[in-house]
């Protein structure tokens, strides 16, 4: 992936030198033309196109912001509710992610999801221990949310 970005920047510089006009607009034009070349030559790369991965990162960021706002609305409802209806629980969540940065990202995503905070990551980093604030109705929905998070992270990390 980084090789493709480097190649694209190199092609943009090449375009700048070819037209002997060293301005930002030339660089952008060269970058777009280089992107076109890389798109045309995609079958010679072993990994997938880096634009796919950039798109996946953008999708993950949007998901992150959406979940942050939802989490805050749910905390707001919980705190301002005159009757405290809590059923806190610690539960174990098995993850399929392997790399350290993926697990870090997943746990900060979970911490910002409605009603969950990651308390502990097991030593072999295969399970996350999550504190959930209201266990009866959330337990299943949370699993589905996390499957969508895990899928989004896997989409970023796959080569």
């Amino acid at each position, binding site marked *: 992936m980084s090789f493709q970005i480097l190649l694209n920047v190199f092609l943009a510089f090449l375009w700048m030198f070819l037209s002997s006009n060293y301005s930002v607009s030339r660089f952008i034009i060269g970058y777009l033309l280089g992107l076109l070349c890389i798109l045309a030559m995609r079958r010679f790369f072993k990994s997938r196109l880096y634009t796919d991965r950039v798109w996946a990162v953008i999708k993950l960021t949007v998901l992150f912001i959406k979940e942050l706002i939802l989490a805050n609305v749910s905390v707001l409802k919980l*705190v301002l509710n005159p009757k405290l209806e809590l059923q*806190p629980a610690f539960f174990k969540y098995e993850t399929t992610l392997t790399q350290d940065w993926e697990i870090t990202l997943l746990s900060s995503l979970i911490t910002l999801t409605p009603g969950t*905070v990651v308390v502990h990551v097991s030593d072999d980093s295969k399970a996350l221990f999550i504190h959930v604030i209201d266990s009866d109705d959330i337990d299943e929905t949370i699993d589905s949310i996390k499957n969508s998070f895990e899928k989004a992270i896997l989409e970023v990390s796959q080569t």
Partner: protein
Amino acid sequence: MTILANILIVFFILAGLLFIVVSAIGLYRLPDLYTRAHAASKSSTLGVMCILIGVFFHFWLKENHFNPGILLGILFLFITGPVGGHIMSRASYLAGVKPWPGTVRDDLKIEVEKMKKEQGIK
């Protein structure tokens, strides 16, 4: 245009204030440390972020001063907020802070006991 800018600024700063007040009320009302960590790690992160966005828009749209330092501050808050909540609740669990009696299920207890046995801590 000024009205639109004003609405944007006032909206963000009011939303931030609301979330910070809610996180303070949550710290007061919720029963134990782990439930308080929910209020503290989420609401205050978003509240401070909203206020910073409001300040950013104010200086950008009204004073014509684009300040990227504020955007970097938002990014750092975004990264460090959840990690702080995680580390504090983990440290207090390992130090033996009891969860609220109403806690329904506790998978972590077994794991922590196993860990302590392996490392020879009583």
